[in-house]
């Protein structure tokens, strides 16, 4: 009682010491409690993201894998070499029979792919062939005129790219000056219809490569059963187009990739400016970055007007003229002027762009419903290609803007196996003949190495350049060939075959480690030659992030606690020295050393108790508030860690309890030395005169 009374009085009356210690305890408690809750929220958010966006609860893959499975890529963003497992059906049936906890299994395989959708000239040449087949004469004339205009554009830009052409060791780029002369000569165009095939081949092989517009798309994709995938990953959602019909081969773009890479560059700049003006309340006038983007857009005007064909141009020019109140009747000038937007006219032009211009250009390098040759590296290291139909785009709900969750495209497993190098015998023959006809050149090893070397694949430019050599140049002709993409496959065909890895969902999330142990046991017994790992491990680098975040928090909290220890010790030591006479007096009039020790410990405990309760209360209030309004994900990447656009941390009472204990503990520990010093104060100190 006396001790507590003294402790309280000392706390009340030594205001400076109390507020210093109080402040550090409150800060420490708030940070520790809030920090822990945030990290918990982030790590559960991340777990959810990982589980719900690709991993499932457990991943299995070959026990002979050369590298560890890393679903989101390794440090370099590359797909790791995990080998393959031969027979999905056997693995599935064995595991489902032996382990009733398993809910579903989705076979998968990840690979990198590239598509060259062809540049504007390629697509116009293709359109010309199509029109010719459909015998639409007027269209034919218009397309021919458009092709001629594009060639004039190329010629105009030739001096600018002369250096690049010289640097490029590409046979198709040799003699470009001469080739241009031929392509712009009157004789070439007067004989165009007569020497049709030769002329088209010439333009496709010699002139089209002169357009350097990085059209090559490079991305990772997951081969799977689209149906099972969409059912198991409950956040899966089709955004544009349609779902791949069950049993059909097909391809889905990740919507994030489709919007941020496949979309027309000029449109992307419009989108970005619009977002930054509306969401982030920036202005063009104040943001240098936005001004730069607009400058690039003006410089890329050709990518807009060269895509507008003469017929469309006759419609759009007058509209642009009146919209811009311009005197000029030249499309190029109008487009350049149009793209030079400012704060005053941005939204008006943004709307005009999507209403009038977008429908007349190729807004996406690859349209939905179109068929493309998808090239990838087989397990042998050589590139193969299959024709795939793009059905649509998808995303995971609440990860719409995350570049991690769902930043892979989806392909049916049958086509994946074909690309990977496993296919039925008739398919082998069929695709061999196809490749021959399409003029697909196999990669030589150096080309493959260049692509598989640890280059940063987020910069498609690097990869695209080396890949360019391998891309079929007679692009326009493949559609006429037999198209395997139309073939249907049966469920058993899908099940009877190779997979690289498989996502497993289990019924009781708490049993992950038990099921993993069981899978490994069954695999050994039944010689399935698989290994099982949990979602966190399967996520590779991304999975370790949650550990890293926690480690960072621990370090921060440790630092705060260390600072708190130091401050408390210091203040209490000061208190002991200041109160030397008082302590001496107590000792003289009969207080034992123990009493002085307890006096200090009591004071520290009461202090830490009061202020850590206060700190916890503040922390809990902050968390309640954050739990209601949520913390907005600052960037696109954050949505993955937050498992949605906002993070809603919750109060974990165990954290509060642990932090209270820890705080009391450190204040008692840090008072040991000051208390010991106080205890040693001699009663003689009481006798010393004040002087």
């Amino acid at each position: 009682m006396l001790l507590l009374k003294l402790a309280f009085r000392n706390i009340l009356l030594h205001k400076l010491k109390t507020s210093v210690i109080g402040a550090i305890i409150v800060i420490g408690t708030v940070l520790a409690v809030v920090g822990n809750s945030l990290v918990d929220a982030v790590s559960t958010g991340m777990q959810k993201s990982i589980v719900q966006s690709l991993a499932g609860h457990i991943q299995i893959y070959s026990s002979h894998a050369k590298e560890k499975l890393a679903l989101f890529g390794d440090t370099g963003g590359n797909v790791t070499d995990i080998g393959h497992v031969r027979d999905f059906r056997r693995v599935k049936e064995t595991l489902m029979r032996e382990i009733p906890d398993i809910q579903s299994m989705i076979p998968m395989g990840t690979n990198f792919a590239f598509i060259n959708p062809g540049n504007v000239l390629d697509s116009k040449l293709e359109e010309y062939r199509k029109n010719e087949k459909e015998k639409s004469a007027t269209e034919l004339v218009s397309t021919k005129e458009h092709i001629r205009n594009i060639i004039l554009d190329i010629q105009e830009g030739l001096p600018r790219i002369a250096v690049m052409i010289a640097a490029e060791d590409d046979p198709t780029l040799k003699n470009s000056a001469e080739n241009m002369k031929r392509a712009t000569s009157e004789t070439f165009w007067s004989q165009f219809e007569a020497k049709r095939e030769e002329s088209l081949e010439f333009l496709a092989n010699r002139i089209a490569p002169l357009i350097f517009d990085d059209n090559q798309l490079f991305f990772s994709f997951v081969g799977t059963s689209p149906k099972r995938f969409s059912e198991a990953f409950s956040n899966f959602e089709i955004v544009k187009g349609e779902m791949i019909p069950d049993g059909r081969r097909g391809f889905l773009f990740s919507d994030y990739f489709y919007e941020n890479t496949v979309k027309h560059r000029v449109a992307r700049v419009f989108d970005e400016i619009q977002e930054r003006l509306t969401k982030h309340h920036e202005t063009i006038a104040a943001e240098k970055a936005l001004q730069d983007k607009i400058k690039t857009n003006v410089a890329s005007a050709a990518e807009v007007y060269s895509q507008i064909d003469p017929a469309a141009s006759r419609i759009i020019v007058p509209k642009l003229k009146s919209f811009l109140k311009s005197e000029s009747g030249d499309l190029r000038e109008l487009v350049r002027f149009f793209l030079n937007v400012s704060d005053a006219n941005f939204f008006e032009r943004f709307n005009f762009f999507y209403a009038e211009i977008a429908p007349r250009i190729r807004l996406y390098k690859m349209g939905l419903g179109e068929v493309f040759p998808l090239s990838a590296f087989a397990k042998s290291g050589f590139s193969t290609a299959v024709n795939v139909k793009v059905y649509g785009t998808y995303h995971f709900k609440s990860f719409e803007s995350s570049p991690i969750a769902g930043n892979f495209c989806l392909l049916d497993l049958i086509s994946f196996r074909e690309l990977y190098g496993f296919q039925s015998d008739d398919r082998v023959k069929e695709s061999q003949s196809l490749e021959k006809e399409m003029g697909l050149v196999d990669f030589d090893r150096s080309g493959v190495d260049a692509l598989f070397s640890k280059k940063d694949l987020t910069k498609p430019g690097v990869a695209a350049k080396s890949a360019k050599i391998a891309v079929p140049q007679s692009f326009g002709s493949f559609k006429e060939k037999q198209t395997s993409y139309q073939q249907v496959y049966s469920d058993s065909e899908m099940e009877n075959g190779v997979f690289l890895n498989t996502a497993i969902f289990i019924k009781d999330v708490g049993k992950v480690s038990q099921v993993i142990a069981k899978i490994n046991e069954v695999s050994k017994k039944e010689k399935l030659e698989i290994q099982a790992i949990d979602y966190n491990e399967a996520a590779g680098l991304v999975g370790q992030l949650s550990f890293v975040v926690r480690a960072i928090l621990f370090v921060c909290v440790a630092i705060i606690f260390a600072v708190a220890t130091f401050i408390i010790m210091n203040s209490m030591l000061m208190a002991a020295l200041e109160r030397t006479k008082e302590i001496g007096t107590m000792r003289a009039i009969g207080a034992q050393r123990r009493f002085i020790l307890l006096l200090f410990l009591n004071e520290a405990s009461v202090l830490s108790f009061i202020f850590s309760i206060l700190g916890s209360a503040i922390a809990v209030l902050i968390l309640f508030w954050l739990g209601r309004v949520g913390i907005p994900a600052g960037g696109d990447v954050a949505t993955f860690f937050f498992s949605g656009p906002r993070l809603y941390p919750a109060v974990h009472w165990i954290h509060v309890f642990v932090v209270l204990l820890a705080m009391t503990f450190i204040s008692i520990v840090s008072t040991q030395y000051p208390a010991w010093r106080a205890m040693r104060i001699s009663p003689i100190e009481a006798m010393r005169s004040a002087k």
Partner: protein
Amino acid sequence: MNKSDYFIQLNQVTKDYQLGKVIVPALKGVSLGIGLGEFTVIAGPSGSGKTTLLNLIGCVDTATSGQVIVAEKDTARLTEVELTDLRLHTIGFIFQSFNLISVLNVVDNVEFPLLLQKKISKAERKERVLHFVEKVGLQGHLNHRPNELSGGQRQRVAIARALVTQPKIVLADEPTANLDSKTGQTIIDLMKHINETEKTTFLFSTHDHHIIQHARRVIELQDGLITKS
């Protein structure tokens, strides 16, 4: 008087202080006895060893040689804990600079040693505290804290605190040194009055001649030796 009749007895006590490498002899062989009920002054010039002598008698310090016997106990043979206990139960202290506990009010300061004693009931504590606070004339300042009191009032609180445990002896090292002479005189009168009414033994040091005149017995110290007893 017989040797054992003295409540406090010193035999050939010396006390040396170590000051760096120099040894300062503060007491050079002091023998004296103090009986119960005495009202004795230790007088002597500055540096003569008055404080040193009181510290030894008050069991807050130990002698270099010789015997200090307090309440029939040889203090050299007691442990730290036992010495503290002896102080708590048999000795009252009054200090030159009052030494009240700054965060406690008058009542709590006076009650403090009773709480250390533990065994005393709440009712008795209250009664005794009030008795002595009244005795020193501070019944009107029960809830004041030391910094709200004058020097004389503070010393009165200290006297009440020293008396509340009903010690056999009260030691006071220059209790009036920090007070003006008039206030000092009233404090000495108060102590003398208590000596007469409560039969409490008082032993205090001073070099104030007016006060020395009031003493029944004067022990004179000079350079660490008793010159008159």
